[in-house]
């Protein structure tokens, strides 16, 4: 039987990225419906990332030298924005909006060597994260970072580049297998002339646009880029593709066709209202089914944010956290490819699992974890020996709520606080056995650490 408290925790772990121990004590003051309402209300606010100022003086265009300088500084600047975003994720009240911003960032995966443009895109996504997927798709198609990333500045009237058109269909809307090569070729022509100017803004160059007749998915006309996007969104397959992805991120990697079909129909009929879709998901009784609770492997970002909320996990310096995220495979604003992070079990290999399981002990200084991120392609030096990943933490607020005296009770209480899955007999036996060996003065914190070092803690 799933308790109300467990359901509320499930809601906050999935909609947002967890909660602090103090927040959890307030859960019982409201019922689930009120919590859902709160989550949406808190996410109405749009707090932009404003780490980097606009790099040009008003009205100016960037010179080639300026562009080169921006590129040279870009990795470092983008890392700083990434860290700033992580801090926001850990502290914001608008947690659903931020979680969806991460989701759409992964969906419209982009990585360009212009930090400022990455920030612009991030704010564009955030603005539309709970709005209309139709508007979001139109906005991203004209987003300067996306245009740069998928080479649409090289998509010319007489020499089309198909990169954007291909990914638009394969990844962003229909999904693979639902279009032809001809659709790609024809629609690429519709996006010719979509480029960016030297102010870093979208520019439609009419004289570079092919306004001839295109044959696209059984229709013909002198389609423009906007027409192509609308035609793709008028296909129910797009709603299904998006809902499937949302379902895997927010509900369960194991898809339930019935749920996905009814959500897709609703999403399509609402003209792609994201807020409505999310509300339906969180309000559905199946969302709280046992099989959906504790079934998801946390992404590296979710793990770190959760640890920040639970024990105020802090890297000794920002670079440590960047390294840690890189070895775990997810540094925001640096997706691995246009397909984004694959997620689920793909987060896990032996090395990354051990790095996850060792985090709680390492944050207490109990033992070191060493790791090195892979060098950038541009690095000229060889790989350095692995560095210590040095984190600090503060367990006082968690400790306040841990109950029990005996080893058995302490483990039970820690598990109830920290795990979304029930302790198995084997787990219980092993944890109690391990806690037995702890000295009396550190029993409480050790009980918490043991549970946080278990594979089960990786599941939300």
């Amino acid at each position: 039987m799933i308790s109300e408290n467990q359901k509320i925790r499930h809601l906050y772990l999935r909609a947002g990225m967890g909660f602090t121990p103090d927040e959890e004590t307030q859960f019982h003051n409201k019922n689930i419906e009120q919590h859902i309402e709160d989550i949406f209300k808190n996410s109405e606010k749009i707090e932009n990332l404003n780490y980097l100022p606009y790099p040009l003086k008003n009205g100016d265009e960037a010179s080639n030298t300026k562009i080169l300088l921006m590129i040279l500084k870009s990795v470092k600047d983008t890392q700083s924005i990434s860290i700033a975003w992580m801090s926001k994720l850990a502290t914001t009240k608008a947690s659903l909006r931020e979680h969806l911003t991460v989701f759409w960032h992964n969906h419209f995966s982009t990585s360009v060597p212009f930090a400022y443009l990455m920030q612009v895109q991030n704010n564009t996504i955030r603005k539309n994260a709970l709005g209309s997927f139709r508007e979001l798709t139109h906005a991203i198609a004209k987003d300067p970072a996306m245009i740069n990333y998928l080479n649409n500045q090289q998509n010319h009237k007489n020499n089309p580049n198909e990169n954007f058109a291909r990914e638009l269909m394969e990844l962003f809307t229909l999904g693979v297998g639902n279009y032809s090569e001809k659709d790609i070729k024809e629609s690429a022509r519709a996006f010719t002339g979509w480029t960016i100017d030297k102010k870093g803004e979208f520019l439609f160059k009419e004289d570079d646009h092919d306004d001839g007749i295109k044959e696209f998915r059984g229709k013909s006309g002198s389609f423009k880029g906007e027409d192509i996007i609308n035609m793709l969104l008028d296909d129910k397959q797009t709603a299904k593709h998006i809902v499937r992805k949302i379902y895997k991120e927010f509900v369960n990697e194991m898809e339930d066709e019935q749920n996905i079909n009814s959500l897709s129909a609703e999403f399509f009929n609402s003209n792609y209202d994201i807020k409505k879709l999310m509300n339906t998901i969180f309000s559905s009784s199946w969302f709280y089914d046992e099989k959906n609770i504790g079934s998801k492997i946390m992404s590296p970002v979710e793990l770190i944010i959760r640890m920040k909320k639970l024990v105020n996990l802090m890297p000794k310096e920002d670079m440590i956290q960047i390294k840690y995220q890189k070895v775990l495979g997810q540094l925001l604003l640096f997706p691995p490819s246009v397909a984004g992070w694959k997620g689920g079990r793909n987060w896990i290999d032996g090395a990354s699992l051990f790095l996850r399981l060792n985090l709680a002990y390492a944050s207490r200084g109990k033992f070191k974890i060493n790791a090195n991120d892979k060098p950038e392609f541009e690095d000229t030096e060889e790989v350095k020996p692995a560095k210590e990943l040095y984190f600090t933490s503060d367990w006082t607020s968690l400790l306040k709520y841990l109950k029990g005296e005996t080893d058995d009770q302490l483990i039970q209480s820690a598990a109830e606080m920290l795990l979304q899955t029930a302790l198995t007999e084997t787990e219980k036996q092993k944890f109690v056995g391990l806690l037995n060996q702890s000295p009396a003065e550190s029993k409480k914190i050790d009980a918490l650490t043991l549970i946080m070092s278990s594979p089960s803690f990786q599941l939300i």
Partner: protein
Amino acid sequence: MKNKINRRDFLTNSVLVSAAMFMPGFLRATGSDTANFNGKRLIIVQLTGGNDGLNTIIPYSNDLYYSNRPDIGVKTADLIRLNDDLAFNPALDSLTDLWEQGSMSILNNVGYPNPNRSHFRSRDIWHSASDENKIINSGWIGRAFDSQCDDSHCALPHNAIEIDSSLSLILRGEKFSGLAMDKPLELAQGLNNPVIKAFSSLDINDSLTNHNFLYKELVDTYQSAEYVVSKSKIYSSKIIYPQTEFSKGLKVISELIISGSETKVYYQSLNGFDTHVAQNNFHPRQLKSLAEGLNALYIDLKQNNEWNNTLVVVYSEFGRRVKQNGARGTDHGTANNVFFFGGNLNKLGILNELPNLIDLQDGDLKYTIDFRSVYATVLKKWLDINPSIVLGKEFSMLDFIA
């Protein structure tokens, strides 16, 4: 029968027995006792950043080489000549023995259609063996092991080791994943965690739920880590390796090989090849690091009678532009040479035609051999695995190994 054998006791048994037991699929899938990779092993080295193949194996007889590279072309007086057309960059001095003693061959003009000049994308294409316009989220070595999994069991992670803190795409399959480690000692640090230790001997039969999956991954990784740590204590190399991180990695590899580790595939990258600026200040240093490391590996394995069972493949995600750029460097290019080393090569020396410096595409070399032909050949002839299952289609076989 569900076997109840304690895997750890088991690890101390002979390599052959344990290999067979860990990977029943290896025997079943191929239906012959020549499976289990025949005791052969593969070392893959990636030159990360885009190695300038034309300044590595230099086509010195071609005037176009010098006219395209007035500042960075390697002077004829400095060259180590391989034949009338090609020569080593002098920084490859340490490879001379391998070359002369019949342990090296060079394949020119390897690439793929519609070459991508992004480091990330081209690296992923080489790792996943995908077409240029398809994204595949698993690596070809990972899938080679996938093809040997039976219903519930795959080979343990240490069958494919990457010398690094995190695992690259190349060793990630859909089911199997390899083991990343900087060195066995760092792997051992992970074993200090009492929770990991406590759960390391669980017997988990399926990984249907993520809960089971994570515990199974813990058990497999622990067993692999313990296996590698125990193997690393058996043999300590008696020859001196250069003090570079790359050579230290090769030393770890050769010690594991000589200790009898059942690992089939090793992967390591050497970076620093993205030579856009003042190339000749950096490129020779990287080549030297490569050559000295490989030479030490060669001596070590040869002295221990392991060189004949070893195949080393060295590649880069792309080559570089034929013409030098304005900063005495070179920009991202396309087709490139691939190097093979080992005591059991079928064809030695230069394997195919010279790079064509006249017939270029956008200033870059045109490929004549698809890199997946190299993979297909390695899979079929060296690892005894059906290439079309791993690569998704047929590629022609090459003859650098028999």
